[in-house]
């Protein structure tokens, strides 16, 4: 084995000082061989990002390195190794960008909105590169071409807001690699992206790596991503390395129970566990021809040039009583808008019909007023995505759980207490914690509290809007299991929203795949997973990374349906923005949006 590029040995990093000193990285060691990819895997609080920032010399002021060394061998100059923890600031600035480059998680905020993409990438050249006779512009355009921009010259002059998240991440990669560093640190580079975009970005990273021969330190929480790109893996938990070694070894034969648990918890599409068709005659809600059009504010003085944005187009969906319907789609697909319309949080366009039947006769949701609307609010509840913003920091858990009961005069004071205790127990938390405040709880526990609050009024329909996407994988599995158990116990029906087919794969009876405000394919879960028809569905399925090292991403399938661009889909599925194709039945209860 050649001498490693980066050599982290016994690194310790602590926050605070004196008695409050709190080590978040405790004796971490790893090495990255030249031209290879090492994945630093861990859940939140594992210290993986802090480790990265230490390597780059970007630790915040209240952090100190307590021990260890980081030996780095730059490919420029004399090729000697040097300890990054003791080099001068001036040398560190040289190394950053020249030798080590970094890509951040959030493509929306990592580019300056005030400068063109070209100017920002040229700056790298101006700071770090020798003049090789070609203009910066030419070299940038070449780099943009290399990261897959269709019109690189146009990209050079574009501002970040003109590009989508995936495109910005491509620009970041171009910026990071244009000076040909020998180490690229990618801190969760695809976490903020849609799955299909993630697949393409990962592919691009690998291509750039092959072209330049750089080493990559990839920080991620997703074992599926690891399986696809990593040569070596270091698994961290609470600042310590739990297990490390060659990727295939670790993923095929994990030895530490923690890694075993992580692999088991990684969501994967499991066709065998998917539900078959459920009976459909008894519907709790039936939505027909639901459209929602937002009028964007015009640019002109009097709002001239206002544009209609079709958030939803003619969606038909129905939820059987006691069943689970999943809405799956990437960001901007309209799935959350549909949920809002269904729970009467937003008004649909005229002509949309949403009919509920709670067991005592059908009624239209949009006609509800006063007392009837309050009854309705009792029966339809929601669990939000972000457990950190869904609980008021100023209320105790007891108050949070009792709030719905108070609003509805559901029961008297002593019963409120009893109910809260029972709900806490039911969602797996200790009733002793009722007097605590939300900050005392972890993300997963907060999500349990949010579920308890939603169930306090004994609703009939529970809408879950990406309830697990802000949680760690191992916690996600627990919350999904809890939701699965509660459905039967409380006789609930679910409308489950997710961007990830794998998350809903063993929960949903029926899945509707949405794209650009329209359902493109809808079928019972088992049928959808076994015989997907639409290229977009296939792309979503193919793009979900699997932690098994032999199941690589199928980039062909992904690129056929990726990017949520109906204009770019193959015939007979292609349509332009104006009129979507009809939803055709290809099989019993299996609908696909395609040309007749």
């Amino acid at each position: 084995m050649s001498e490693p590029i980066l050599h982290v040995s016994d690194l310790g990093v602590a926050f605070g000082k004196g008695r409050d000193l709190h080590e978040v990285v405790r004796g971490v060691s790893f090495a990255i061989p030249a031209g290879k990819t090492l994945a630093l895997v861990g859940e939140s609080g594992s210290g993986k990002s802090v480790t990265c920032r230490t390597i780059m010399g970007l630790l915040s002021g209240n952090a100190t390195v307590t021990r260890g060394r980081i030996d780095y061998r730059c490919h420029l100059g004399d090729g000697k190794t040097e300890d990054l923890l003791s080099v001068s600031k001036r040398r560190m600035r040289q190394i950053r960008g020249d030798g080590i480059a970094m890509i951040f998680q959030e493509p929306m905020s990592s580019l300056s909105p005030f400068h063109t993409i070209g100017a920002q990438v040229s700056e790298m050249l101006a700071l770090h590169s020798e003049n090789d006779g070609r203009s910066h512009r030419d070299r940038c355009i070449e780099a943009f071409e290399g990261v897959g921009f269709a019109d690189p010259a146009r990209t050079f002059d574009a501002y970040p807001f003109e590009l989508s998240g995936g495109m910005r991440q491509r620009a970041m990669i171009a910026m990071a690699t244009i000076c040909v560093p020998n180490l690229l640190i990618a801190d969760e580079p695809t976490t903020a992206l849609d799955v299909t975009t993630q697949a393409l970005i990962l592919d691009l990273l690998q291509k750039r790596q092959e072209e330049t021969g750089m080493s990559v330190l990839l920080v991620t929480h997703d074992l599926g991503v690891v399986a696809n790109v990593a040569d070596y893996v270091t698994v961290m938990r609470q600042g310590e390395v739990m297990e490390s070694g060659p990727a295939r070894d670790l993923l095929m034969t994990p030895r530490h129970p923690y890694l075993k648990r992580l692999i088991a918890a990684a969501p994967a599409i499991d066709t065998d566990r998917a539900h078959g068709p459920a009976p459909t005659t008894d519907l709790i809600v039936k939505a027909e021809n639901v459209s929602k059009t937002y009028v964007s504010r015009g640019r002109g003085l009097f709002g001239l040039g206002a544009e209609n944005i079709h958030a939803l187009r003619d969606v038909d969906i129905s939820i059987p009583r006691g069943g689970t319907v999943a809405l799956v789609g990437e960001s901007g697909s309209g799935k959350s808008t549909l949920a809002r319309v269904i729970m009467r949080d937003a008004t649909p366009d005229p002509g949309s019909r949403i009919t509920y039947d709670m067991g005592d006769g059908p009624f239209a949701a949009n006609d509800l007023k006063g007392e009837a609307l309050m009854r309705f609010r009792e029966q339809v509840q929601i669990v939000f995505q972000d457990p950190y913003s869904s609980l008021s920091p100023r209320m105790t858990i007891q108050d949070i759980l009792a709030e719905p009961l108070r609003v509805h005069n559901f029961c008297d004071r002593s019963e409120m207490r009893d109910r809260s205790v029972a709900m806490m127990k039911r969602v797996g938390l200790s009733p002793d914690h009722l007097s605590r405040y939300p900050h005392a709880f972890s993300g997963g526990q907060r999500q349990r509290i949010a579920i308890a609050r939603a169930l306090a009024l004994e609703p009939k329909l529970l809408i879950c809007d990406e309830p697990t996407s802000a949680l760690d994988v191992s916690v996600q599995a627990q919350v999904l299991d809890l939701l699965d158990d509660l459905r039967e116990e409380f006789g609930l029906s679910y409308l489950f929203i997710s961007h990830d087919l794998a998350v809903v794969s063993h929960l949903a009876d029926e899945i509707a795949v949405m794209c650009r405000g329209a359902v493109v394919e809808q079928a019972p879960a088992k049928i959808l997973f076994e015989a997907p028809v639409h290229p977009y569905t296939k792309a979503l399925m193919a793009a979900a990374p699997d932690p098994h090292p032999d199941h690589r991403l199928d980039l062909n399938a992904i690129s056929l349906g990726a990017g949520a661009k109906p204009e770019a889909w193959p015939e007979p599925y292609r349509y332009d923005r104006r009129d979507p194709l009809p939803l055709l039945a290809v099989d019993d209860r299996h609908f696909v949006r395609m040309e007749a």
Partner: protein
Amino acid sequence: MKRTDPTKGGRVPSPIDPNEHYVNATPDDEGVDTGGARPDLDMPTGKLIRRRFLRHRLAVISGLFLAFLYLCIPFVEMIAPYGANQRDAEHLYAPPQSVHFFHEGSLVAPFVYATTAAPDLENFQWKYEEDRTVRQPIRFLCLGEPYRFWGLVEGRFHLVCPPEGGTLFLLGADRLGRDVFSRLVYGMRVSLTVGLIGIAISLLIGVTLGGMAGYFGGWVDSIVQRMIEVIRSLPELPIWLALSAAVPPQWSPVSVFLMISIILGLLDWPGLARAVRSKLLSLREEEFVRAAELIGASPARIIRTHLIPNFMSHIVVSASLSIPAMILGETALSFLGLGLRPPAVSWGVMLNDAQDLTVIEFYPWVASAMVPVILVVLAFNFLGDGLRDAMDPYS
């Protein structure tokens, strides 16, 4: 996150060789879910804020200083050795007298030396000479200049009185022979309360209009925003001047004082309204507010139980940061002679006497009202700073 002692042994660093399959001997925690939990933040917000505020030393000192001043306000008549407008024709522009504790080498009760005035015919001013032989002990807890406490009860009790037959001009005397220190103490009453009354008016308007704009949005928001923009675009000083010039000169000092606070409040609310509006707008986006809406809670209930507890603290901060502006406003107006007028005493009125450059040159103590103005404004700013840091204990 678990805390461990890094000095304890038993931990083997993980290996360097990437090809070695290393397994840490630490057992699995079996999915104990701790990600994101902050047990240290598990307590009522008020407690968190207090704890954090106390760590901000400068803010605490400022807070104590201001608390001390405000506690003094009801008792100014007793604290000041002289009356606010008590004149001593023998001591025009008398310089500050220093308090002594040692007389001929021995420690004695605090005293001042007698001063004698002699005309200096070269410079046409009074020269004051200390007579080092005549010791005049200062009297404490004594009966002195009569006053009407709160303008109601007659009293003669003072904490400190000038010596029998002598003077006690701690900060000198002004043009009419009035004690500057006593006037500072009396002026404090007006100057510090003008901010409170002004801020109360400003809060009332600002929270109501800002709250409506933030919660209802739409055209209500537009109207409030336009009002704010118009008021903000008015040049501040001329408007103050115009409004205070409209106060009839025959009004009593108390009415003028109230009027001035109202004017200051009426012009200050836009800043507060904006702060309230933007805080409400961001809070409305929080999912716990949406959750309350979808539970069916009424707007009144949402505002009361979900919004107000979360933004009250921000209002306290905004208010504490606006008070100094009010104090400075009053000072500026009175300095220009358009705010309070004698015989009312405020720091601005006192500075009005110090407008003349020659006065400053020969009798700088006449401008000593500058010092409390600067100290109070700084203290409010430090206090507001500390509060602002403390009010968001979750960051």
